């Protein structure tokens, strides 16, 4: 194995390969950072460029784009509170508030370093335990997938800062929106109203861009003529030492990073669930395990570490079923499967035997991409921060045009741009109504998985619901889901010490704010939501 690894590194360390991978990582970072452009789009648009390259160089370029784009999403998630990709949704929860506190550089540094760590840990998993992990993932059927989806959906309430009712409503609304299109199993068109474009349902990209990017532009428009104005973003330290955080902070986050990496790898392996889900799950788990859960949503590096480690750990996770079984774990690896097949490579168990050198070249390309990502983002950190000097009234319209380009690029349809506008209005309405948007996204992502596997599972068990309870893995997940609901209901009606601390914090915050001063939107959502729940009479 070491011989093959050494040969792989010799292949990718050739000057032209290093340049190609560096270019791929840089382009990937740009695609990840611009809301509306995603890793899938980066890999798909650059796929034709690999035709003229050899298999190793071509796949290395695609791998570099994947690594760069997955990590690049953190830039806009932190600086603009707009996730660059679905995999950086949870990064906005704490990255945005950290930026508003003037600690944007620290948030970016933490995100970059733990993106790197997540990628490296997932590559280690890919190299050492890929075949056995893939076999376990492959043994999962509809019952298990349904149970996992239900369990993940029950975590929505954890994301419901403030009113649990509104949080659950948001998750259900996301699930309901995902039911538009051709129904699974019996292929009946639902809620399409004769519109052909709706047959495939809404794309996650248009929903995400609308709910976050367009809604942000509308929010800025609302404040444009007020006394506070929009101006430029919060001041951020322009001189940054290293990555902007201390060694103590780094070592303090290691357990969180390892836990989040494991979540990212495990979710990444499962076909159909990708980094878009794992970053939110890792965030929720980090919040539950934290000694200071009340700080989540107000700007803690724990949240950024969890999200960024998990989403980058999904890279290796998604590559495991692709290389070992020939099954793409997510949309990016589906395009990469096409890239492999263009070069006459058939992924699967035999790939490690017949094309061992190529496989280890891909592993080496992943490692090199991760290192180059760290270097490019380290030096880019200073440039990213300077972006904040651009006034929002200039920056956001340009981003919105890029979002429109991204939406158009999905299927060359103007319809998708209309969709982002509609979801933008919905996102703005959610903000005005105090309804959190994160549960909507997780409901939208996990809804189809839950419904499809419910229908398939029932077909397998002849319409008998007990099939979900007699299957041990499915039963275990459903039991944990039931316990999770019970615990959250119990916690909602019993004020905890943490809640009391939060209420005290909010009171101090309210008293300290001069009248008319704008409260950061993310902080408003969380802290004011908690204030609201405190005001609600409890039994």
């Amino acid at each position: 194995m070491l011989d093959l690894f050494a040969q792989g590194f010799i292949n990718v360390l050739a000057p032209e390969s290093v340049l190609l991978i560096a270019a791929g990582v840089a382009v990937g970072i740009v695609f990840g950072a611009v809301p509306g452009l995603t890793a899938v789009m980066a890999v798909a648009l650059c796929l034709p460029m690999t035709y003229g390259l050899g298999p190793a160089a071509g796949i290395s370029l695609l791998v570099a784009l994947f690594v760069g784009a997955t990590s690049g999403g953190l830039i806009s998630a932190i600086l603009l509170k707009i996730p660059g990709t679905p995999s950086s949704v949870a990064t906005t929860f704490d990255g945005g508030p950290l930026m508003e506190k003037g600690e944007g550089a620290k948030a970016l540094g933490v995100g970059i370093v733990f993106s790197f760590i997540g990628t490296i840990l997932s590559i280690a998993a890919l190299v050492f335990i890929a075949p056995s992990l893939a076999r376990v993932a492959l043994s999962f059927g509809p019952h298990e997938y349904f149970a996992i989806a239900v369990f993940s959906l029950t975590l929505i309430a954890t994301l419901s800062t403030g009113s649990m009712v509104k949080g659950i409503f948001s998750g259900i609304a996301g699930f309901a929106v995902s039911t538009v299109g051709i129904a699974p199993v019996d292929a009946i068109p639902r809620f399409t109203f004769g519109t052909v474009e709706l047959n495939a349902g809404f794309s996650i990209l248009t929903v995400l861009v609308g709910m976050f990017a367009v809604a942000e532009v509308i929010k800025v428009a609302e404040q444009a003529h007020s006394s506070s104005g929009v101006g430029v973003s919060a001041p951020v330290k322009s001189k940054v030492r290293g990555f902007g955080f201390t060694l103590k902070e780094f070592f303090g986050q290691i357990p969180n990073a390892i836990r989040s990496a494991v979540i990212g790898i495990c979710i990444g392996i499962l076909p159909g669930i990708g980094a878009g889900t794992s970053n939110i799950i890792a965030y929720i788990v980090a919040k539950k395990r934290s000694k200071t859960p009340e700080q989540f949503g107000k700007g803690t590096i724990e949240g950024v570490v969890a999200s960024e480690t998990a989403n980058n750990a999904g890279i290796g996770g998604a590559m495991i079923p692709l290389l070992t079984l020939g099954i793409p774990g997510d949309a990016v690896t589906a395009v990469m499967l096409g890239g492999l097949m263009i070069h006459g490579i058939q992924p699967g168990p035999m790939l490690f035997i017949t094309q061992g050198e190529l496989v280890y070249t891909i592993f080496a390309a992943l490692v090199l991409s991760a290192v180059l990502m760290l270097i490019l983002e380290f030096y880019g950190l200073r440039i990213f921060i300077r972006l904040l000097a651009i006034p929002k009234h200039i920056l956001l319209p340009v981003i919105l045009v890029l979002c429109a380009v991204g939406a158009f690029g999905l299927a060359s349809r103007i319809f998708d741009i209309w969709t982002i506008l509609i979801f933008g209005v919905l996102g703005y309405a959610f903000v005005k109504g105090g309804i959190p948007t994160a549960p909507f996204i997780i409901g939208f992502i996990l809804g189809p998985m839950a419904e499809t596997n419910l229908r398939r599972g029932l077909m397998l068990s002849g319409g008998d619901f007990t099939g979900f309870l007699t299957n041990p893995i499915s039963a275990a997940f459903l039991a944990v889901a039931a316990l999770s609901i019970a615990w959250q209901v119990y916690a909602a009606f019993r004020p905890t010490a943490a809640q009391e601390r939060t209420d005290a914090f909010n009171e101090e915050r309210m008293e300290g704010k001069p009248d008319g001063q704008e409260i950061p939107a993310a902080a408003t959502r969380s802290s004011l939501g908690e204030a609201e729940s405190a005001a609600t009479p409890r039994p």
Partner: protein
Amino acid sequence: MVETRTKEAVVGVLMLAAGLGYLFITSNLPRRGAVDAAFVPYVLALATVGLGAIQILTSLRRPKKPAAGQSSGAKGGQPGGNLIPVAKTLVLVAAFTAALRPLGFPIAAALYLFLQFVVLTPRDGKKVRYPFYAVMAVACAAVIFVTFRYGFDLMLPAGPLTTFLP
């Protein structure tokens, strides 16, 4: 200032209306047994209706006046602002989308960017810099168009400019 209780009740009514609307369109789906294409939408619709009802009841149980030290605008969501630029922004985005095919991306994007810069410019006594905005709008639209059309082969509509393009 909208009173928090009323605002929360309005949110509840809207949630309930959304649930009832979804229930209505679900009832129009063809049925093919107990667990069919309409099963999950029915579950979701009923849950939404229930949540809307809970939200209304919870809001009505609230005290009428906001607690001391808390501004009413901050209770259930973002504080209110000026809705005129919001309406202008929505109209501009809709017009940009509608104009993409007939005008082409470069012209539609340049016009949209220019007007959106003007609309979003803070009214804090500073002059709106029309020439700068015009140059920025044209430059940004051109760079984005060229990058995606020629760099990534994404065939953004060019409208009347199609005949002049290589």
